């Protein structure tokens, strides 16, 4: 980032220095002229030299060097015989003149360089102090925005600006602000270069704008509003650039702190949700476990126990479905892909509904011939199980359920078909809604089974769709992206 400030007009003080130099030479010349009979012409040379040295300590190089040249010429003209000519008679006087000239120029040059260096050092020191103050006040301030306000206040003080405005950017775009210099601000933000008054870009703008942040992460712009007759030179602009950099660090730090706090909150909130789910899960499943074990203990083949058993299995299924649904919707579900044997998955899908499947034999096709596939086996098994269970509800007793699996390049296609009544026309998407029930549907479903199945499939990057098969019955199609193992 560079500033190319406009060259400021030759300052008034410069002209003053030139005039003063002239006056001094005139005064000294007169005084020495008066003293000439008593002191001789060499005396005046030394007087001039001393004057040049002193001038070098106070004035800039230009006036001092001009003074040196002028003194030499005046001394030659007025004092070296023959007087009132620039011609020099005696050869030793020529040498003296030359030496004087040399001495005057060197002294003037050296002392003014010394002066310049002192001024530079003082300026550097002021700059460092300013940066230190800005850094300190941001660290010591009690809160996030307090640090920023304090930094801005210090910056305004250091730079003597009338007003300092800070416009931050979000996602690369500057937030709106009431300033009139909007196009200047945008330009400065996009090109990461200072713009506005006292610079080469938009010199007629109201204020001077500096970019904050880096190329990769722009933070905004800072604007300095000066009084109408203020003069800002190159050094001041450089100082402001370093201050802007310091400020960028402060803002960057505040942003990081805020982001870290948000991340902590999010992690904590997720942890709490998970703990809550675990807790609810435990509370719901324990009494169900007790009922099941007690039922097993009763041993009953009597109709009462039989009814209780059916009901508790259904209750268990509903509770598990709701817990899965909650887990899925609260975002704690992530697909964990691993190499799976599809026959394993299909087997696992049938386990929880083995009772229901007794009435509906599952005919498998193709699952055993496939190579190992990269999927989340547990999620797919659950999804398949839900779809199979749905089929057992709608299919007439004794009718088989057909499950076929095959590979398209890069994708696994599984079809589950039953010989039930099929889907009501137009409802092919609605079956996946929570608590959807087809008209005249038998009871026994959880209401969320298909919604969960679809959620589980989509969590792996696939999809689950349904249609009525042309030959009758409903057909569910699973499409899953899956790598195959080379073996």
């Amino acid at each position, binding site marked *: 980032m560079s500033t190319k400030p406009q060259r400021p007009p030759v300052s008034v003080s410069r002209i003053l220095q030139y005039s003063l130099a002239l006056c001094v030479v005139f005064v000294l010349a007169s005084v020495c002229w008066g003293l000439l009979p008593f002191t001789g012409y060499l005396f005046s040379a030394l007087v001039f030299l001393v004057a040049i040295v002193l001038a070098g300590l106070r004035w800039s190089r230009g006036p001092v060097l001009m003074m040196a040249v002028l003194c030499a010429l005046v001394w030659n003209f007025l004092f070296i015989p023959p007087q009132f000519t620039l011609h020099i008679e005696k050869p030793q006087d020529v040498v003296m003149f030359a030496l004087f000239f040399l001495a005057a120029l060197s002294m003037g040059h050296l002392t003014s360089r010394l002066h310049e260096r002192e001024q530079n050092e003082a300026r550097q020191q002021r700059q460092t102090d300013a940066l230190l103050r800005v850094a300190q006040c941001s660290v010591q301030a009690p809160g996030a925005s307090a640090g920023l306000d304090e930094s801005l206040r210090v910056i305004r003080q250091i730079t003597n600006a009338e007003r300092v405005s800070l416009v931050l950017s979000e996602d690369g775009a500057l937030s709106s602000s009431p300033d009139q210099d909007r196009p200047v601000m945008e330009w400065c933000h996009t090109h990461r270069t200072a713009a506005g008054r006292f610079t080469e870009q938009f010199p007629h703008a109201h204020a001077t704008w500096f970019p904050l942040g880096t190329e990769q992460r722009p933070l905004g712009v800072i604007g300095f509003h000066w009084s109408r007759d203020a003069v800002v030179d190159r050094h001041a602009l450089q100082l402001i650039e370093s201050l802007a950099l310091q400020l960028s660090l402060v803002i960057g730090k505040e942003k990081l702190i805020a982001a870290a706090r948000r991340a902590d909150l999010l992690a904590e909130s997720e942890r709490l949700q998970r703990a809550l789910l675990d807790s609810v899960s435990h509370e719901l499943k324990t009494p169900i476990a*007790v009922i099941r074990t007690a039922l097993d203990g009763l041993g009953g083949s009597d109709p009462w126990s039989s009814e209780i058993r059916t009901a508790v299995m259904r209750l268990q299924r509903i509770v598990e479905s709701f817990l899965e649904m909650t887990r899925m919707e609260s975002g704690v579900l992530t697909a964990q892909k691993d*190499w799976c044997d599809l*026959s394993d998955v299909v087997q696992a899908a049938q386990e929880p509904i083995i009772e229901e499947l007794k009435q509906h034999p599952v005919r498998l096709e193709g699952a055993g011939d496939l190579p190992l596939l990269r999927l989340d086996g547990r999620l797919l098994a659950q999804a398949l199980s839900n779809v199979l269970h749905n089929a057992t509800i709608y299919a007439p007793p004794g009718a088989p359920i057909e499950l076929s699996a095959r590979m398209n390049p890069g994708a696994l296609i599984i079809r589950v078909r039953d010989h039930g009544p099929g889907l009501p026309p137009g409802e092919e998407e609605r079956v996946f809604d929570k608590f959807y029930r087809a008209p005249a549907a038998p009871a026994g479903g959880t209401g969320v089974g298909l919604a969960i199945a679809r959620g589980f499939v989509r969590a792996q990057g696939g999809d689950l769709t349904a249609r009525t098969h042309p030959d009758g019955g409903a057909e569910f199609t699973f499409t899953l992206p899956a790598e195959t193992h080379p073996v």
Partner: protein
Amino acid sequence: MSTTQRILIVDDEVQMRRLLRMVLEGRGFTVCEAEQGQQGLQEAAFHRPDAVLLDLGLPDMDGLTALKHLREWSDVPVLILSVRNQEAVKVEALENGADDFVTKPFGTAELLARLHAILRRRYSQQSPVYSVGTLRVDVLHHEATLEGTSLKLTPTEFAVLKVLSQNAGRIVTQNQLIRQVWGAQQASQTEGLRVHINHLRKKLGETGPRIVNEPGIGYRLVEPQ
């Protein structure tokens, strides 16, 4: 080995403890109970049970911690009772010394089958021949027969079948299988393992014992019903 085996139940739910006691006593076991982890460890040290049923959701200490403490001085068979469905928890328990698990709500038959399996494994002699249903695995002569007919198995397939038969009825995690067949260094052999399991299943056919996969956890060799 005494004829009455003593089982320690560690579970914070009083109803669960009562029911399990009734089930086990009905099958001829002696039962002692504990409702917290610390108490469970004390009971285990005092009564020296033949097996422990350990619930993972204990109030005072994590079930896993209790298991680790127990394993520091005892190799008593441990059956985990867990309400949580996540495989990671179960795998960790199995890797830390648990012998098997059941997920609540469980069926009593399942619980008893697994309990018997872990008791059998601990107290059977290291024998050269393992029988699981009609399957016979002869480690000494390096051969396996199903219903009398010899099975043609590759050395790796035999090794896998041997491990599963030694632990018949009990879950063997993927890592445990890999370690016992290929050695500790070959930790990333999961795909290879699945391929061998696949081949074994085909060779065992429909009539022999089944290799059941617990998704995300491991395998279990189960006698046909």
